[in-house]
């Protein structure tokens, strides 16, 4: 197993080295700055949260402070690694190769779980280290506390990894026979995201509940979530609970590893043979090269769980938001009016809707990993009589077909439901559509800056690539500009000039999109041909 681990670490470091080596200093600096901003934002949010929960330390149940940290770390770990676990455990390219060697399944699983454990530990650290830092600020640091806390952090990561492995195992067996597994997985993620946004939307109420109902929460955790109670007690110096929590962590970990080891070969053999495939009608419709490229992209998008889940959530979220916007029209209007923030509220609505559509773009960076996803298949396109620019146009076309009509129609529907004037409605729809075209163009530009062709699983270019990170940050920035620009512009120029503001916005977006499109076709096309 030590050899397998050595290989995995070697692959990890080689990947990092290659990724760094392939980037120019400017690109690395840009990537570093974006990562720095993200880390700083997360730290500010988490420190604020732990100072707020610091009140538990003064109550009769100080352990609840650490129990909350454990629950959040557990939730983030599960959310962040369940699909990665499933794909790395059961869809890794070298599984068959390793099984053909004189290696025990436990050794293969052990080496994979350890690498995944490091990722889960990182997620736990993101949540728990600020909690420990705030505790030390409020109560003063001690060697004993730091030591116990670090061990507890390792143990909760182990519990999280155990549950993630179990979920990944169940998911693998469930999805193996299911034809539309990518859609099912995306739907699951969309529901989780919706719950997350509902939680964020009700953060004020949630905070009040969490801070005022400490006693009830403490009782509930103690009665129904004992491991977190034990974790909290361990951090506050209860050695017995510490020992019990450690025993529990190792116990469930061992049990789950035993189950995974015993079923690993069976899990490798469950296949999704398409029984009725021979009856499938032969589709011999003639298409233009670009239309055929676009169709190929759509087939890839809808058949890959990693691709659909990581870049297609925006599509589901958009549908959900449009439906919610229609159903809760009355409540939303009441809320906006009650805030008394905007004079001539109706004139601001198209800009607000465009802003919402803009925020969805960074949840739908479909084009951003599309070049990287060619991976080992790159030879097919490169050996064909088709220019790099044409290939990129095919990828952009699919991104636009997937996102632009939905954004355009969604904006029109919402504007009409909220009683916006026709001209404003049309201009807002054009802005929404252009934002998604810009997202598609920029995604491809970033992918040509950060191509990642030698990935072990499709999840890597879809969620751990420079292109996806950059497009998400870029579209977040654009969204803030569009949202703020729309509101400020309408406010400054007056509600009667709202159409003019939207027109200017559309013109600026069209110009920026066109300039990046030219860059993509000239520089990007050449770069693709040299990949």
């Amino acid at each position, binding site marked *: 197993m030590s050899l397998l681990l050595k290989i995995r670490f070697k692959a990890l470091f080689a990947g990092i080295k290659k990724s760094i080596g392939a980037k120019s200093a400017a690109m690395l600096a840009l990537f570093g700055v974006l990562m720095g901003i993200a880390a700083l934002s997360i730290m500010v949010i988490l420190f604020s949260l732990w100072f707020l929960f610091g009140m538990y330390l003064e109550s009769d149940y100080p352990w609840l402070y650490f129990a909350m940290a454990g629950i959040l770390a557990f939730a983030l770990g599960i959310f962040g690694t369940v699909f990665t676990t499933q794909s790395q455990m059961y869809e890794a390219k070298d599984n068959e190769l390793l099984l053909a060697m004189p290696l025990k399944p436990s050794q293969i699983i052990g080496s994979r779980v350890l690498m995944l454990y490091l990722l889960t530990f990182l997620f736990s650290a993101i949540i728990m280290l600020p909690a420990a830092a705030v505790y030390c600020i409020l109560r003063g640091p001690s060697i004993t506390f730091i030591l116990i806390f670090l061990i507890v952090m390792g143990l909760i990561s182990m519990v999280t990894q155990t549950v993630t492995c179990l979920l990944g195992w169940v998911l693998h067996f469930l999805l193996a026979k299911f034809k539309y597994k990518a859609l099912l997985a995306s739907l699951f993620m969309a529901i989780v995201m919706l719950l997350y946004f509902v939680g964020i939307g009700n953060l004020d109420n949630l905070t009040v509940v969490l801070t005022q109902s400490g006693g009830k929460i403490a009782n509930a955790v103690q009665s129904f979530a004992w491991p977190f109670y034990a974790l909290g007690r361990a951090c506050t110096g209860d050695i017995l609970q510490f020992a019990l929590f450690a025993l529990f962590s190792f116990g469930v970990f061992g049990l789950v590893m035993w189950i995974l080891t015993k079923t690993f070969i069976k899990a490798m053999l469950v*296949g999704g*043979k*398409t029984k009725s*495939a*021979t*009856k*499938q009608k*032969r*589709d*011999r*419709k*003639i*298409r*233009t*090269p670009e*239309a*055929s*490229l676009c*169709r*190929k992209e759509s*087939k*890839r998008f809808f*058949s*890959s769980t990693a691709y659909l889940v990581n870049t297609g959530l925006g599509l589901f979220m958009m549908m959900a938001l449009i439906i919610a916007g229609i159903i809760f029209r009355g409540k939303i209007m009441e809320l906006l009016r009650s805030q008394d923030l905007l004079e001539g509220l109706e004139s601001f609505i198209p800009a607000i809707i465009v802003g919402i559509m803009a925020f969805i773009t960074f949840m739908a960076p479909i084009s951003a990993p599309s070049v990287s996803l060619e991976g*080992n*298949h790159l*030879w*097919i396109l*490169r*050996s*064909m*009589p*088709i*220019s790099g620019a044409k290939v990129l146009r095919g990828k952009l076309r699919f991104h636009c077909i997937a996102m632009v009509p939905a954004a355009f129609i969604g904006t029109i529907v919402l504007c009409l439901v909220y009683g916006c004037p026709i001209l404003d409605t049309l201009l807002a729809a054009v802005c929404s559509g252009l934002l998604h075209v810009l997202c598609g163009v920029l995604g491809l530009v970033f992918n040509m800056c950060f191509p990642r062709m030698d990935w072990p699983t499709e999840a890597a270019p879809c969620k751990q690539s420079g292109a996806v990170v950059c497009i998400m940050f870029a579209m977040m920035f654009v969204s803030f500009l569009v949202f703020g620009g729309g509101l400020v512009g309408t406010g400054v120029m007056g509600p009667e000039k709202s159409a003019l503001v939207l027109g200017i916005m559309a013109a600026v977006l069209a110009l920026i999109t066109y300039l990046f499109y030219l860059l993509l076709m000239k520089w990007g096309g050449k770069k693709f*041909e*040299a990949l």
Partner: protein
Amino acid sequence: MLKIEGYTKRYGEKVAVNNLNLHIAPGEIYGFIGHNGAGKTTTLKACSGLLQFTEGTITVNGKSIQKEPLACKKEMAYIPDNPDLYDFLTGYDYLNFVADVYEVSKEDRNKRIDEYGELLGITDALALPISEYSHGMKQKVAIISALVHAPKLILMDEPFVGLDPLASHQLKQLMAKHCAEGGAIFFSTHVLEVAEKLCHKVAIIKGGNLIASGTMEEVKGNSSLENVFLELEEKTE
């Protein structure tokens, strides 16, 4: 049809192929032989426009692969040694995709897919996703995709690997037919018996250097190709 003149490929300090000169005429099956890492795949990839190079010229029907890559690619097809096809498509989807890109008419693609599919014994499996194919089945689909647009020149890297005996036999027939109709084939192989029986001309490469080339008779004389190959390998060590 295919002219390679002074082709040199370097990877940093290492010279993968050194000053290679070859001419493959219409109607010829040209075998390319050498041990692993000799530079066969590097040469085939450069000919197909997959690999960029700075020294030498490669032309297809008088057009330079460096200056007019798309015009060259229209006239040829390439089959790699390990055909990684789009596993999210079915065999039919993949062949249609290739036919669309090469703008093959409906009649021609239907006729060719049916004909080659039957010949290689893969028609029944073409409706299945490629993810369910074996290596040999992928190889068969790659061969059909290479033939679907009726190219003049076919570049093949170890085309017989993974094929069953019947498909292997059919492929040899297809190659002979293609050349009889005026096409040309440049392919690499480790199976010297196949090269000896099939090729009009042969080139032997070692460490990036061409050590022998010419018609099969010129290269092997009265001996077998295997003996000549082994002798040449020893001589140049």
